[in-house]
């Protein structure tokens, strides 16, 4: 006997879907402004920099889209598994595994094969790697009822350890470096806008979000996912093979996170290093929360979160605020958004389980 917190979406008015996140932003900005005053920066110029770095200038907006791409991929996956009633806290780990495998394929094959083929293979393997990394908690949850939150967090840690090892061992760029990194990747994703490095990853992300939306609401498997998430007992009674639905949605979620890892190394960085893991996989959980687990909502929410990310990064360059401050501001906004949307969109209940 024990208690678990059960979070379920509750019906809300269409207006609230937009208002709640906006209100939480406003609130966060006010508090952030006070913090800036306290840090000795004029909040008006601070926020001007913030907006310039993310929305109102072309390079700023491009930067936002680059960031939004990663959120979009991971949050779409998380939304799908959430719809099946499984919480994938492991996007971070699946993203790392995807990045490692993509780098590996690229570095190994880019000298011998056509770059386009290398990119396709690398992205494919990133997806498969992410899916397999998510398959483990999926199977444990689906067939043995082991809590997926615990297992995914452990696997995140493990993935990070593998990353640390791989860039110091098998994938190390020889010679003295500032920090351990892989050899450069030359087989890269097609670039859409050169100054920001915005690449085809965005197209992949939007396409997958739209595909996920269609799948979720218009196909047999999507139907099974939604029934399973809403009432697993009913799904079992209807002969849906709940175990399989759980494993499948978790793997799908992992595949998308893996693709995000591939986009990061093949599109944005063109090499692999420890710094790829900065917790975007965790932030993506909030993104899908704000989107109410709706793949199309994820597109909007990702752009919103991309704005916060690039805006607060630009703050630091434009003012004398420290990296830590801008990160704190970013975190503060996430927190406000998280709390507001949780209470506005979800019914949170403490339920007894035996």
């Amino acid at each position: 006997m024990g208690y678990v917190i059960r979070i379920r979406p509750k019906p809300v008015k269409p207006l609230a879907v937009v208002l709640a996140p906006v209100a939480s932003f406003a609130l966060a900005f006010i508090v952030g402004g006070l913090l800036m005053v306290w840090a000795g920066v004029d909040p008006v110029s601070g926020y001007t920099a913030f907006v310039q770095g993310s929305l109102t200038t072309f390079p700023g907006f491009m930067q936002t889209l680059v960031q939004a791409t990663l959120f979009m991929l991971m949050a779409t996956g998380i939304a799908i598994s959430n719809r099946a009633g499984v919480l994938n806290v492991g996007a971070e780990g699946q993203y790392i595994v995807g990045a490692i495998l993509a780098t590996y394929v690229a570095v190994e094959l880019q000298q011998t094969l056509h770059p386009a083929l290398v990119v396709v293979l690398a992205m494919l393997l990133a997806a498969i790697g992410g899916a397999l990394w998510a398959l483990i908690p999926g199977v444990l949850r689906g067939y043995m009822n082991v809590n997926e939150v615990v297992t995914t967090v452990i696997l995140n840690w493990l993935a990070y350890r593998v990353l640390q090892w791989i860039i110091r061992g098998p994938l190390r760029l020889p010679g003295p470096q500032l920090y351990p990194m892989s050899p450069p990747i030359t087989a890269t994703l097609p670039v859409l806008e050169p100054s920001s490095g915005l690449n085809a990853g965005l197209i992949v992300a939007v396409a997958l979000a739209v595909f996920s939306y269609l799948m979720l609401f218009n196909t047999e498997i999507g139907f099974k996912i939604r029934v399973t998430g809403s009432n697993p007992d009913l799904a079992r009674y209807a002969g849906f093979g709940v175990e399989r639905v759980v494993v499948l949605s978790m793997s799908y979620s992992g595949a998308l996170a893996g693709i995000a890892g591939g986009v990061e190394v093949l599109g944005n960085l063109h090499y692999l290093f420890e710094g790829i893991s900065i917790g975007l996989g965790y932030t993506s959980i909030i993104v899908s929360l704000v989107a109410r687990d709706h793949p199309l909502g994820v597109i909007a929410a990702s752009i919103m979160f991309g704005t916060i990310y690039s805006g607060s990064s630009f703050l630091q360059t434009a003012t004398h605020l420290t990296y830590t401050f801008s990160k704190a501001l970013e975190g503060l906004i996430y927190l406000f958004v998280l709390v507001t949307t949780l209470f506005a969109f979800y019914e949170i209940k403490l339920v007894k389980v035996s």
Partner: protein
Amino acid sequence: MSSRECQAIVEMRGIVKRFPGVVANDHVDLKICRGEVLAILGENGAGKTTLMNVLYGLYLPDEGEIYVKGRRVSHRSPRDAIENGIGMVHQHFTLVDDLTVAENVVLGAEKFRVFYDLEKLAREIDEFMRTIGLYVDPLKKAHELSAGEKQKVEILKALYRKVEVLILDEPTSVLSPIEVRELFKTVRNLKSTGISVVFISHKLDEVMEIADRIVVMRGGKVVGELARHEATKQLLATLMIGSRAVNIEEKFGKRVRPAGKLLEVVDLWVKGDRGEDSLKAVNLVVRKGEIVGIAGVAGSGQRELAEAIYGLRPAWRGRILLEGKDITRAHTVERIKMGVSLIPEDRLRYGVAAELPVYENIYLEKVHLEGRKSLLDRVGLRVLDKRGMVDYAKKVVEKFSVKTPSVFTNAGKLSGGNIQRLIVGRELERKPLLVIADEPTAGLDIAATNFVRKTIVEMSEAGAGVLLISSDLQEVLELSDKVVILCNGEVMGVFRPGELSMEEIGLLMSCAKRMSKEEVERAWGT
């Protein structure tokens, strides 16, 4: 008892109680006389429970006045009501599982008794129970009691507080026929000691048997008040359901002769939730066009039988055959595809996906029945035919009169009765070969009950086999071609309705008697 002799102990005047969207009690006047059994009869949702909850202090009325023995009172909590001599036993029991019967009886009645001598308390309560003539072992823990015993303890709790009016809300819904007999005896006993009993029910037979006076409610209003001798079943039914009056005595059409074996259960052993043997060596045959009824005291293995046949619960011994094909280990999907459907007893659990619209909830298992043609279909990406789903749902909603604003409304918004209609519709409209109907009419009003029964009979006439599980013995006897009595997971007897007396059936249901192998085999043979 004519109104001239009525010595009113309680009078409710102009009671109005509103809930969001409904007026549960609409200017209700009610009088309870001393020493009478007053039945409040009405369909589900008529407002019976609400009215009594107002009297018992659980709800404050929005309008209206309550008088007890001529004095104006305001009951703000059950404590106030009990002080004024009014007790109530609800549909759901409120006993503390880990306490003994004796402790449960006194719990809350005596203040400041933190330490007590259990033995002494048990002796006191033992004595008390003997004077009342209602006995349950005072040292048994509440969770060890049967439903009937729990109800007795609830009644004892009220009597211990010296109530003069005892309200029983649908008291028979949890009891076996034998326990109902006992309850009626108790009610008559109480009446003879001058206690007034308010008996809430939607079952005509019971009301006709036990009541001195009958108040009929419909749509939150009192629509009739009759003395027992003025009432007929037909009259009461008409009052109860108003313009939708149907003849409840109506006999269903003669059935076609059952044909070949559809379902065969051989030596089936199934474990219950706690690992106990819920079904022991059960044998069963359902032929095409036949209704086989399963009756027994609640918890005799009915639910496990339904789940085992539908594939939700594994059989650890024995076989289940459908049209001669062994399906003992088949997945539920296979069984659904072969034409098995289940109206589950546990509607809270297996009912609906609350966040999904009605039309998807109705479609549910039909997802398996579509052909898989293209590659997309085979990998689960078959595009759903929404138009078709919606049209189908509209048909089911219409046919089974599911009250919902639209088929796009989330199923969680529907009331319990409508969710049940949705389930029944979903399971029957699919044109199944074998219907397992587990308590298909529990909680439905008369009109809906009749409709479901008729539909079940029609399905069997059209050649489907039906396994009808019901705690309503009358229902089983009326509808079934053969009746199987379960007790403690074992088949105690098989017979055709009318072959056995109620006494004999009662003995079978309580494991007191078992039909011989030959008798059982003969019953299956016919």
